[in-house]
């Protein structure tokens, strides 16, 4: 595995994070949901993530904190089972695990960039950026909604089959990612006191 491939994969996994609190109201239309999401400039939350991997008998679990600051900063701080940090700021992705630190530019990894951009775009309520890479489908009402993203981009599609975000009112509650190889992950999010 080369270093860059390693990083690319690691960056891909950023995907696993997103989330975030935001917004009011239960839109019926994508436009409305986006507008609501866009209202919240930042949010902090705790997360629990379960990965279902075919070679493992049971899912592996991790947990930690998430922070989104509009429009471009996304932090995922894993506390268990191993401390680990992933920060996306603008085009720069920084990964830290133990004493190792990797910094990479998103645009050098178009397939990863497409996905991450879309997650960040959801949190920021940036529909245009989202629709550049994904087909969007919204279901439910303003109380409970589900947004399903299906990759339009072939490179992204090689890794990700579908992303399903579920929310209550203005808050993203879970992110489920189904990978192209059948493995999946489910991240559930509890909003913390907003730093606002």
């Amino acid at each position, binding site marked *: 595995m*080369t270093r860059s491939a390693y990083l690319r994969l*690691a960056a891909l996994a950023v995907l696993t994070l997103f989330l975030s609190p935001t917004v009011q109201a239960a839109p019926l239309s994508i436009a409305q949901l986006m507008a609501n999401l866009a209202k919240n400039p930042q949010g902090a939350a705790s997360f629990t993530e379960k990965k279902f991997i075919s070679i493992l008998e049971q899912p*592996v679990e991790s947990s930690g904190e998430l922070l989104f600051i509009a429009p471009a900063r996304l932090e995922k701080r894993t506390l268990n089972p191993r401390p680990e940090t992933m920060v996306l700021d603008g085009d720069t992705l920084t990964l830290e695990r133990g004493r190792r630190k990797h910094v990479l530019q998103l645009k050098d990894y178009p397939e990863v960039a497409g996905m991450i951009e879309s997650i960040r775009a959801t949190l920021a309520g940036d529909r245009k950026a989202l629709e550049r890479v994904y087909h969007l489908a919204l279901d439910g009402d303003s109380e409970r909604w589900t947004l399903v993203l299906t990759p339009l981009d072939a490179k992204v599609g090689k890794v990700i089959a579908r992303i399903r975000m579920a929310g209550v009112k203005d808050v993203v509650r879970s992110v489920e990612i189904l990978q192209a190889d059948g493995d999946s992950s489910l991240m559930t999010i509890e909003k913390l006191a907003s730093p606002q």
Partner: protein
Amino acid sequence: MTHTRRHGITAIVLWLIFLLACAGIISRTHFTTDLSAFLPRSPTPEQQLLMDQLRDGLASRLILVGIEGADAPARAELSKQIAQRLRANPAFASVNNGEPVDAERDRAYLFDHRYLLSPAVTPERFSEAGLHAALGDSIDLLASPAGLLVKSILPRDPTGEMVLLLDQLDSGAQPNLIEGAWASRDGARALMLMQTRASGSDTDAQQRAMTAIQQAFDQAAGASASARLVMTGPGVFSVTSRDTIKRQVTRLSIISLTLISTLLLLVYRSFSALGLGLLPVISGALAGIAAVSLGFGEVHGITLGFGTALIGEAVDYSIYLFVQSEQNRADRQNWLKRHWPTIRLGVLTSIAGFASLLLSGFPGLAQLGLYAIAGLVAAATVTRFVLPSLLPANFRIHDVSAIGLTLSRWVKRADALRWPALLVLAAACIIVVVNRDSLWNDKIAALSPVSQADVELDARLRADMGAPDVRYLVVVSGANRESVLRTSERVSAQLQTLVEQGELAGFESPSRYLPSTVMQRARQASLPDRPELETRLAQAVQGLPVRAELFTPFLDDAATARRQPLLQAADLQQTSMAMAVDALLIQQKQQWRALLPLTAPEGVDINADHLRTALDGMPDVLFVDMKAESDRLYSGYLKEAIGLSLGGLVAIIALLLLVFRSPVRVLRIVAPLAAAVITVTAGLSLLGQQMIILHLVGLLLVVAVGSNYALFFDRPEPHTPILPRILASMLFASLTTVAGFGLLAFSNVSILQAMGVTVAPGVILALMYSAIFARQSAAGPSNV
């Protein structure tokens, strides 16, 4: 007369033979501009290492390339095109710009040999408990963002050896990637790192490599005309310094000769006098180069630069002859009787001064000493024995007695300046004493002919690149490859502890890529046989969310690894690690050496004592701080040079005492010279110029040249006035010397500049102090 004439002819013939011999030697002389002049003649083990590293080491072969201007995509594209072109060029051992070119081969090497390479492979690791712990770690990793990496190889590598090897390989800070190529942190520059196959001391090869890079850039840059190429590195430095020194020495000699010739022409108003007057100079220069070539096997460019300045000094002897004996042949015989002994003594004092430099362990200094001695002796000898016979019977130069008389009147009044001069001298003494701690610059960088702008560019590119500056090294010596690899492994274990304690940020070792055979066997033996491993694995997965059957590929791989042939150096071929091993594992004659470069924690120097303690008791292991070592080397030279110069001074005084047998008289001669030296030193200190070794050589020259003046001003009985024409000759002599050395003061090669700013003012001061403090004659000016 016939007798003299026969002697004259013999002298001319001998002289011509001598010149031919010199020319013969020079035609076979090797001229250098590299660091050799600054490296010791009898090095300690640390110094030897320093020299080897400077000449051929890993760092000496690196060229850092930056591409500036245009926009980011264009820069990245240029970087890729240049890299592609140069990768096909055998002159480059490696060309890196962040593109994953060797990635597949590297990966295969690491993965296929992971059980031979991984330092984690021990019998404990493959016990039930060890397997359980390692599996647990790998499963943890699956939950992380890096999980996608390990997922696919988990069945073959459940203990995570590959991840460990990759982590180890990736320990250095790497530049950012922009558009798929390395870029500086601020994104304004694309970066490349090349390693030449030729050593850094092979300046010609380095120059060819630079040309190849420039050509690759030019051919690729067609589309983006605003892009610029910059290069740095030790090899680049030696090429540019060679160019600078070559250019400067050529230009300086031309200007210096022109200036001095013009000056002499103004004085002599005769081309034949000018031509004849330059004969001793040319003879001196040839003798100097030939002597250095014979004595050292090569001549350094700096020695030649020094030689151009010495033109102004060597020409003095013929000036004395022509001006002091301007009348006719009889007068010249008279000159030989009356004044030659004074000049001869001046030459002898110069030799006494410079002879001390010959003892220097600093070859650059010894070369200058030998050049000066040979050059001055040859110039004086030719003036004395050859030149008179060459002069035509009616030889005359322009009458300079008017100038002489004017000077005479000035000199008579010079004692009015005694008090002001004493005040200046007192002030100079105070300045020197007050600033005594900051007079000297003891950093070796002060000698470097590399310009400040180039040094800054180098620092910038290095910082961007995170390039190894190879300041700290642990060196392991041994009789063969196996033994140095064995020791490297033991040292690595110690270093790893220091890394964990935070004393070190990291280190590199050849044993990482090519473990010793003993180590490889031990690792193979750590793997249990297949049935045993299967049993242990079945136990190890208890309590973990995996089934043992998943790991059948691991059992296969482990069984293969137990029987796999051990890694040899040749197995590394075609991987990017081959370069690392080549650079870190060196065979020299019967000796092998492994280098383990250390990386200091960010912003901190490595604590040498802690390191030495940690490595204490390991034979054949040496910790070297290259920077401290080179500074120590240079400050050693500086101390030695100061000592030798003082020795030279003592020799001069002893010589004068021997000749004059009068301490008072010697004091009168030496005092103006000492005054000039002190004043120049104070002046440099006031101007904020810290002295390097070459300033010291300059001061020695001030004494050597000034001694001629002081000797002329010195008379046994004060009632005889100094002849006006002698005064005129001294004025012309000092002007030519000032012209020769003054030019050096404008050189941007620091070592040449140092000599220039010292000698030019020093010589004038020596002349003035000699005039001011000369004993005044009671009588008025006599006839010319």
